[in-house]
C-alpha cells in the first residue's frame, strides 16, 4: 500500500519533469531564431552598451562568452563548432583556424559596411584573400616608462628594449607573461626578428634573455600598468591598451616606441564554419562596422580602429594619442608574431629555464 503511493508520487514527478523539459526546449527553439553566440576576450572587449543597442535595434539576443586566450577559443570552437557564430581572435589564430578548416567564408555581399575598413588592413598574411576575417581592433606592445624614476635610479633614458638590461633597473621592470613575447624582446634587442628559428640566433637570444632576469620584478598579463602606477616598476613591456590606461591613471608615465621595432596585433572577427545563425552574425558585423559605432568601440576599448570611416567620429584626445593613432613611421616599424606554432615548444622550454633562474 505504502509502496504503491510512493510509485505514484514518483510517477507524477517524472511527468512533471518531462513537461518542464519539453517547455524549456520549445522555448529554446523559439529563441534560437533570434540569437547569436559570440566569444572573445572579457573585460568589455566588445562594449556592453554597443551590444545592448544592437539587441534593441534588431531584437537579436547576443550571448557573449568570455575567454582568456586564443587557444581557449580554438578548443571551444573545435569541440562545438555549431554552438558559436562569431569569435574575435588574434591574427596568428586566424591563420591556424583557417588551416584547420574551422572557419566559414564571409559573404561580402551581406556586409556592405566592409567598405569602411581601411584598405591598409586588406590581405594580411593570415588571410591573404580577406575571405575569413574582418579586422576589429589593432594594438601593439610597447614600453611604458616612468622617466623621472629611471633617472633617479641613475639609469640612461629608455628608448628601446636594450635599455631594459641596464643593471640600475634591477627589480624594476614588469613584463607580460608569455614566452613568445618575451623571447621577442630578447631577439629584437639583438637585432633579430620575432620567432627566429635559426638555432644559433635562438641560443644567443636565450643567453641574452637570462641576463634580464634580475631586472624583472613581476610577470603580469592582465594589469601590468598597475605596477608603474603604484611605483613597483619604472619600466614595463605591455599591450598598448594597458599603456593607455597607465598614462590616464598617471600622466607622468610616458610611452616609448622601442627603436628596435614592436609587435602589432590585429584582433579579427571570424565566423564558425557551422555557425547556427549566419544571418544574425552578418547583421551584427554590419552593425559594428558602422562608422559612428566603430568609433565608439575604439574609444571605449582603447584599441585602434581599422575602420577608416570611423576616424571623423573619434574624440580629439583619441586622435592625439600617439599610442592609439599610430604615426606612419611607428607603424612601419611593427611586425606580426608569425608562425607561432613553429617556435612555441622551444620558446616555452627556454622561458621555463629563464623563470627558474
Amino acid at each position, binding site marked *: 500500500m505504502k509502496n504503491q503511493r510512493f510509485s505514484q508520487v514518483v510517477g507524477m514527478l517524472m511527468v512533471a519533469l518531462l513537461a518542464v523539459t519539453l517547455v524549456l526546449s520549445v522555448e529554446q527553439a523559439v529563441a534560437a531564431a533570434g540569437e547569436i553566440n559570440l566569444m572573445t576576450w572579457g573585460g568589455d572587449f566588445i562594449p556592453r552598451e554597443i551590444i545592448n543597442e544592437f539587441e534593441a535595434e534588431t531584437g537579436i539576443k547576443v550571448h557573449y562568452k568570455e575567454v582568456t586566450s586564443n*587557444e581557449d577559443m580554438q578548443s571551444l570552437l573545435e569541440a562545438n563548432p555549431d554552438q558559436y557564430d562569431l569569435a574575435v581572435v588574434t591574427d596568428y589564430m586566424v591563420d591556424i583556424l583557417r588551416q*584547420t578548416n574551422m572557419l566559414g567564408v564571409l559573404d561580402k555581399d551581406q556586409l556592405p559596411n566592409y567598405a569602411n575598413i581601411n584598405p591598409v588592413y586588406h590581405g594580411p598574411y593570415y588571410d591573404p584573400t580577406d575571405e575569413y576575417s574582418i579586422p576589429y581592433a589593432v594594438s601593439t606592445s610597447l614600453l611604458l616608462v616612468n622617466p623621472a624614476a629611471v633617472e633617479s635610479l641613475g639609469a640612461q633614458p629608455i628608448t628601446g628594449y636594450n635599455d631594459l638590461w641596464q643593471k640600475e633597473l634591477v627589480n624594476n621592470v614588469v613584463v607580460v607573461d608569455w614566452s613568445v613575447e618575451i623571447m621577442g624582446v630578447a631577439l629584437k634587442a639583438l637585432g633579430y626578428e620575432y620567432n627566429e628559428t635559426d638555432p644559433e640566433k635562438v641560443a644567443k637570444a636565450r643567453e641574452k634573455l637570462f641576463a634580464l632576469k634580475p631586472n624583472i*620584478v613581476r610577470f603580469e598579463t592582465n594589469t601590468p600598468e598597475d605596477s608603474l602606477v603604484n*611605483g613597483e616598476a619604472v619600466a614595463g613591456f605591455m599591450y598598448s591598451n594597458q599603456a593607455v590606461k597607465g598614462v590616464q591613471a598617471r600622466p607622468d608615465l610616458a610611452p616609448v616606441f622601442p627603436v628596435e621595432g614592436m609587435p602589432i596585433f590585429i584582433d579579427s572577427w571570424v565566423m564558425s564554419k557551422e555557425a547556427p545563425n549566419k544571418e544574425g552574425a552578418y547583421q551584427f558585423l554590419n552593425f559594428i562596422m558602422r562608422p559612428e559605432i566603430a568609433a565608439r568601440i575604439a574609444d571605449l576599448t582603447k584599441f585602434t580602429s581599422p575602420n577608416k570611416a570611423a576616424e571623423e567620429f573619434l574624440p580629439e584626445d583619441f586622435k592625439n594619442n600617439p599610442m592609439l593613432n599610430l604615426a606612419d613611421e611607428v607603424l612601419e616599424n611593427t611586425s606580426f608574431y608569425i608562425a607561432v606554432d613553429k617556435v*612555441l615548444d622551444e620558446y*616555452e622550454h627556454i622561458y*621555463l629555464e629563464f623563470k627558474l633562474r
Partner: protein
Amino acid sequence: MQTLKRNLLAVPILVWLGLLVGIPLVFVFVLSFLSRDSLGTIVFQFTLENWQRVLDPIYLRVFRNSLLLAFLTGLVTIVVGYPVAYITANLEPKKRALSIGLIMLPFWISSLLRTYGWMILLGNAGIVNNILLGLGIIDKPLPMMYKFGTTLVGTAYMLIPFAIVAIFNSVDKLDRSLLEASYDLGANRRQTFFNITLPLTLPGIAGGFTLVFIPALGLFYVSDLLGGGNTIFLGNLINTQVTRGRNRPLAAAFSIAMIIVVLLVISIYGKVAKDDAEGLFL
C-alpha cells in the same frame, strides 16, 4: 544482500564519481601517451616523449619548487594553527563555536578575491606600506610583493583552516584524565605537553599537514598573483601547457605525475595514522 541494501544510498555518489572523476582520469592518463601536431591538435600516436620530459632535470626543478612550497605551507600552517586549535578545543562550548565560526568565515568569500586582498595589503602603495610611511617608520615603500615568501604567505593563509580543524578534532578527543594523571605523577605543563598531548595529537597534525600539502601543490593563481609569476610551480606549468603552450599531452603527463606525488604523501600519512581510528581517508 543485506550489505547491498545498506549501501544503496552510496550508489548514486559512486556512479557520479565513476562518471565524472574516473572516466576523465582515464582520458588524462591515455592523453599523456599521445602526440600532438604543431597546431596543438591531438594525434593518436603512442609516444613516451611526454614522460621523458617529466623526468628532464629542468622539469624536476619545477617538482622540487612545488614540493618545497607545499612542505613549507604545511609546516607554517601546523606551527601557526596548532596553538589556535589547542586553545579553541579547550574553550567552553559557546566560545568554541564562535571561534570555529570565525576560522571558517573567510571561506565564504572567493579565494581569488582574498588573494587580491593580500595584494592590496602588501603592495607598494598598499595598506601596510601606507601605514608605515605615515608613521615615519620607513621612508620608502618596503618591497613585499612578488617573492617566494609572498606566495608562501598566500598559500598558508588560504589553507590554514584545514590544518586547524584537523588538529582541533584531535585535541578535542584527547582523554583529559591522561593529562591529570601526568600532573599527578609530578610532570609540569611543558613535560605533559611534549610527552602526552603532542604524541596523542600526532594523527591530527599528520592529517592537517596532508590536507594542506595536497592542495598547496596546485594553487597556481596564488603564485601568479602574489609571486608575480617569478617562478614556476606544477600548477602554473600545467596551466600554461594546456592554454598558451598548446601541449595538452605534456600537461596530462604532469597531472598524472602530480597525482602520483599526492598518492605518495597520502600513503606516508596512512603509515603515521595507521594505529588510529580517526584516519582521514579510511
